[in-house]
């Protein structure tokens, strides 16, 4: 028998104490946190016990029970109950508490999380009035609960309130020799900090309670049940907030340019990755960077944060030189041309930058050279000779992205010279197998030349220290953390920062005067220089980490430059730079399940969006609705039409329009008197709940998830109108008419709230709603203050404006035409790139499925496989055949049961077809039981 434990892991306290307590004979192996001893588990589970039979126990409670039983103490039922409570109720709370206290440095908030379980335990002990949990002797339950609580009860800095019975029971168990010795072994007197390295390796706890929490159901709970139970208190609270109206709200000051950090304000600096100038941005670029950052910035401004949003075009580099050659212009002319194109596209998409600049400016040279010299002075630069690829035919050194070849790591045949699209690892261009010049397809030759390197290994320790704080306290997306971690795990290597080119920021060092800075070094400095072009006082933003919070938005391929490389430049320059606090990275957006490709004309590009006749707000809505948040997603025309028609037209637009029309038609355009009944209060509570979640999610930059809560509100509203039928009641007696008035008044106020919540997503529609309702301008920011305030902003007697429909239907033929126009069929010869590869790799197998098998009863739509054109073809054929079969049976007047069975098959096939065609984009609701 062998027990595996690791130092600093709180669960090991249990088993080591149980081992001593029972005196069971068992070897103990100390291993590190990452080691996986249980062969069938994908995540390391420590402690683990290897049983004589060769099987493993990986639950610390089961191990303890086993040790006690071997010692002759079987677990009595009451013990069992405490153990179950410990595993299901106490542990989740404890883990969250420890994570907050140790990793996030929020020890002061721990008591909130632990109050409920500690009270429960206290009551249990008080009621029993016994020295130990189940009697007069120590049992396995005492050991387990003592160990679970030890980390937090032994730390006097945590304010946990008074729990007398818990305290005296804890001290009693704690005094035991077995417990003392276990704590020494696991924590070595280091207290909470002794667990830091363990906790950091755990996935962050899922917080499923609203933060400033009255107890409420977790979001997953009511997905399951369909409707959330609203408590009386919630209803009363919502009605009270409602009745206060807008008067209490603070007044939002007009924003004055230039925006500079202010004392006592939340100063937020937002950047989105600088789009490269040589091309027109596609929808993926737009949602990944500028649009996401815009939504967040609008939200922040609405919340009253002092927020600056800067962006600009990234203009230096070989790609620009090439483009210039192609178009017969100078690089500067190319930049001017494309900068204007970018600016126009973003303007059409209503991206509200405070400043949209560019990197080819004097400020860029000044700041980049300054950072360079500081790095040089502090000894973070080194010289080395580099072997570089040179194309003799094109007569120039090849920039990394102009060489293609076989990836030295994963053998992917189309790896670029700087990075492999498949495995994501960075590549040194000369390591590529069978390199080719991308322009002329000749094999380049290797030449050597002298270059400067940023000494990343020397900065690694500093970087790790900073990362620990930043990722621990900020809102980094999971992919950003993962990518960063994998970079550090591989170890950092020095990175070359100079290039043999002309179009770039010149290297000021006399030995390297023919060279320019490599774009990856240069481009992020663009954030600083663009701000400097916006205001002379740019340093108040960029050299002010004490007052400024920095958000970087980007797609995931850009993460390492923002989390590792650029921070190293700034840390090494040692000038108190503002480093990123929140790194928000999206996954990829595919186009109808292929990749956006300019060269093949596949996909919608920024400049074409407006030619579709679809309003900018609808584009924004759909892109945000499918924002690749957490996983890759796909743009699909059919889906866009579906979402426009079902969500915007039939749900949101329908509700707002009906609410306004009722006021106009039944009440002469004046908001009627509202007399709130229980049912109305319940609705107010449900709407407030959605609003609170919207705010919580937006604060965490969960833009896509937050949007769902807006749509939920209008769904609640539609249902409310449908049930109450104001159009019938208005024709009834006095009581009925009054009821119609209340329902109409509440509805039109919800419409007003929706206009505020929509503001970050659909600014034009949002403004239109307020214009139609003649709503007071203060309503927008008042309602999104704090944790959300749904107040009555259109009180009885308020006159609204002219109401008209907000959205238009997208017709099937219109969408079909657009789909054709923008390609979307993937050419057969094209090798799939990025993550779509995995899906494609599956499809031949899926396509080979015989139709009969695919129609087997119980076969569920293949969600993992997702959209699959090949399969769709097969299925569409199967649907036709099955349809004919059904018709034939009906014609023969066959047995009814037989027909029903065949019809069921047909429906199932159609369902699968819809999935294969990507018509069922709804992510399955979270399952809770």
């Amino acid at each position, binding site marked *: 028998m062998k027990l595996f434990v690791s130092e600093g892991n709180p669960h090991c306290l249990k088993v080591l104490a149980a081992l001593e307590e029972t005196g069971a004979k068992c070897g103990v192996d100390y291993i590190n946190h990452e080691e996986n001893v249980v062969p*069938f588990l994908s995540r390391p589970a420590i402690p683990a016990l290897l049983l004589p039979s060769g099987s493993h126990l990986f639950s610390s409670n089961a191990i303890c029970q086993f040790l006690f039983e071997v010692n002759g103490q079987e677990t009595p039922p009451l013990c069992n109950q405490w153990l179950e409570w410990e595993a299901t109720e106490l542990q989740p709370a404890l883990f969250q508490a420890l994570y907050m206290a140790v990793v996030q440095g929020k020890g002061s908030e721990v008591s909130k999380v632990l109050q409920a379980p500690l009270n429960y335990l206290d009551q249990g002990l008080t009621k029993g009035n016994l020295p130990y949990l189940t009697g007069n002797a120590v049992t396995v339950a005492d050991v387990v609960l003592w160990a679970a609580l030890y980390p937090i009860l032994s730390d006097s800095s945590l304010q946990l309130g008074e729990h007398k019975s818990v305290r005296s029971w804890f001290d009693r168990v704690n005094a035991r020799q077995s417990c003392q010795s276990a704590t020494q072994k696991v924590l070595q007197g280091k207290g909470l900090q002794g667990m830091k390295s363990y906790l950091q390796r755990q996935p962050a706890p899922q917080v499923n309670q609203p933060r400033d929490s009255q107890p409420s159901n977790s979001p997953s709970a009511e997905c399951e049940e369909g409707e959330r139970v609203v408590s009386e208190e919630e209803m009363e609270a919502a009605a009270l907030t409602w009745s206060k109206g807008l008067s209490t709200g603070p007044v939002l000051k007009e924003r004055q340019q230039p925006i500079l950090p202010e004392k006592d304000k939340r100063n937020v600096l937002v950047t989105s990755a600088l789009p490269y100038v040589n091309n027109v941005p596609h929808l993926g670029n737009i949602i990944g960077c500028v649009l996401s950052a815009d939504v967040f910035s609008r939200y922040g401004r609405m919340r009253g944060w002092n927020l600056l949003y800067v962006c600009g075009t990234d203009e230096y580099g070989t790609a620009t030189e090439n483009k210039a050659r192609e178009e017969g212009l100078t690089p500067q002319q190319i930049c001017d041309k494309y900068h204007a194109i970018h600016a126009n596209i973003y303007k059409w998409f209503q991206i509200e930058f405070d400043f949209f600049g560019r990197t080819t400016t004097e400020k860029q040279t000044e700041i980049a050279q300054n950072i360079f010299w500081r790095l040089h002075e502090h000894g973070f630069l080194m010289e080395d000779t580099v072997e570089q690829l040179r194309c003799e035919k094109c007569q120039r050194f090849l920039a990394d992205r102009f060489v293609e070849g076989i990836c030295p790591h994963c053998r992917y045949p189309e790896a670029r010279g700087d990075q492999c699209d498949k495995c994501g690892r960075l590549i040194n261009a000369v390591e590529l197998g069978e390199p080719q010049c991308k322009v002329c397809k000749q094999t380049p030759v290797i030449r050597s030349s002298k270059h400067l390197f940023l000494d990343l290994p020397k900065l690694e320790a500093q970087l790790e220290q900073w990362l620990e704080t930043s990722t621990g306290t900020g809102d980094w997306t999971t992919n950003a953390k993962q990518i960063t971690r994998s970079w550090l795990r591989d170890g950092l290597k020095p990175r070359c920062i100079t290039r043999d080119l002309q179009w770039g920021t010149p290297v000021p060092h006399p030995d390297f005067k023919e060279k320019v800075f490599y774009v990856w070094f240069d481009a992020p400095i663009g954030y600083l220089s663009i701000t400097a072009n916006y205001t002379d006082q740019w340093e108040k933003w960029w050299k002010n980490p004490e007052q400024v919070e920095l958000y970087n938005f980007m797609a995931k391929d850009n993460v390492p430059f923002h989390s590792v490389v650029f921070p190293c430049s700034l840390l090494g320059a040692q000038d108190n730079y503002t480093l990123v606090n929140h790194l928000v990275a999206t996954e990829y957006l595919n186009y109808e399940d292929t990749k956006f490709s300019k060269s093949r004309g596949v996909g919608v590009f920024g400049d074409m969006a407006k030619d579709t006749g679809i309003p900018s707000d609808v584009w924004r809505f759909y892109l945000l609705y499918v924002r690749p948040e957490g996983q890759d997603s796909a743009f699909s025309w059919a889906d866009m039409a579906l979402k426009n028609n079902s969500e915007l037209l039939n749900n949101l637009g329908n509700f707002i329009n009906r609410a306004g029309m009722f006021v106009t038609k039944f009440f002469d355009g004046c908001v009627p008197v509202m007399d709130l009944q229980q049912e109305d209060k319940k609705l107010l509570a449900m709407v407030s709940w959605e609003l609170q979640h919207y705010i919580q999610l937006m604060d965490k930059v969960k833009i896509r998830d937050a949007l769902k809560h807006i749509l939920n509100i209008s769904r609640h509203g539609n249902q409310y109108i449908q049930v109450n039928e104001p159009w019938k009641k208005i024709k009834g007696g006095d009581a009925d008419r009054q009821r119609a008035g209340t329902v109409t008044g509440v509805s039109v106020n919800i419409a007003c709230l929706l206009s505020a919540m929509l503001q970050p997503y659909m600014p034009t529609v949002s403004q239109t709603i307020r214009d139609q309702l003649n709503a007071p301008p203060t309503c927008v920011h008042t309602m999104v203050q704090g944790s959300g305030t749904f107040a009555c902003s259109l009180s009885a007697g308020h006159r609204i404006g002219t109401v008209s429909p907000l959205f238009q239907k997208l017709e099937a033929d219109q969408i079909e035409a657009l789909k054709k126009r923008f390609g979307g069929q993937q050419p057969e010869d094209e090798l799939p790139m990025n993550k779509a590869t995995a899906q494609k790799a599956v499809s031949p197998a899926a396509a080979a499925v015989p139709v009969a098998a695919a129609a087997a009863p119980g076969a569920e739509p293949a969600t993992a496989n997702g959209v699959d054109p090949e399969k769709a073809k097969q299925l569409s054929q199967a649907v036709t055949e099955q349809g004919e079969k059904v018709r034939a049976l009906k014609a023969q007047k066959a047995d009814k049961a037989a027909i029903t069975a065949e019809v069921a098959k047909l429906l199932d096939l159609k369902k699968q077809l819809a999935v294969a065609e990507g018509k069922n984009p709804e992510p399955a609701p979270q399952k809770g039981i």
Partner: protein
Amino acid sequence: MALRELSSLEKFLELKKPNKYSTQGDKKVPVLQSSDGPPLVGLITIACNLVKEAKRSELLGDSAESRAVVQQWLEYRVTKLNNYNKDDIRTILKDLNLYLQDKTFMAENQFTLADILMYYGIHPIILDLAMQEKEQFMNVTRWFDHIQHYPGVRRHLPPVVVLKNRIYPSRH
């Protein structure tokens, strides 16, 4: 959910008179009021108690080792399968699939309470799987199919169709 499970378990155990349960808290933890002594709280606690009442303690394992393994999977049931998100599902299936590679039952080589409660708990996940995924997690579906056909277990749940012959060629 948990309450229907408990009443199915009662029927499986052929207990004469059905118990009345209530729930407590947001998570709807089942509670059983007993005539003598304090109420029992929690799915495992109550289930183990029912098994003992029915004098079927072999369902909790017949050796110290197997009892520990049973308890471990019961705990897994209430910690991992009561509250998971989409990302967890694949990990759960992957781990169980590997675990069940050389096993007929969850614990040792006999049918136990762990099989029953794990079956009830994983049912919604299996119900949602595509054919192809069921094949990918072949060992889980094999075990699942076995348990759902075990006399008297299925009760309140709809049967899930599991094909025995593979229709998708192996991807490995």
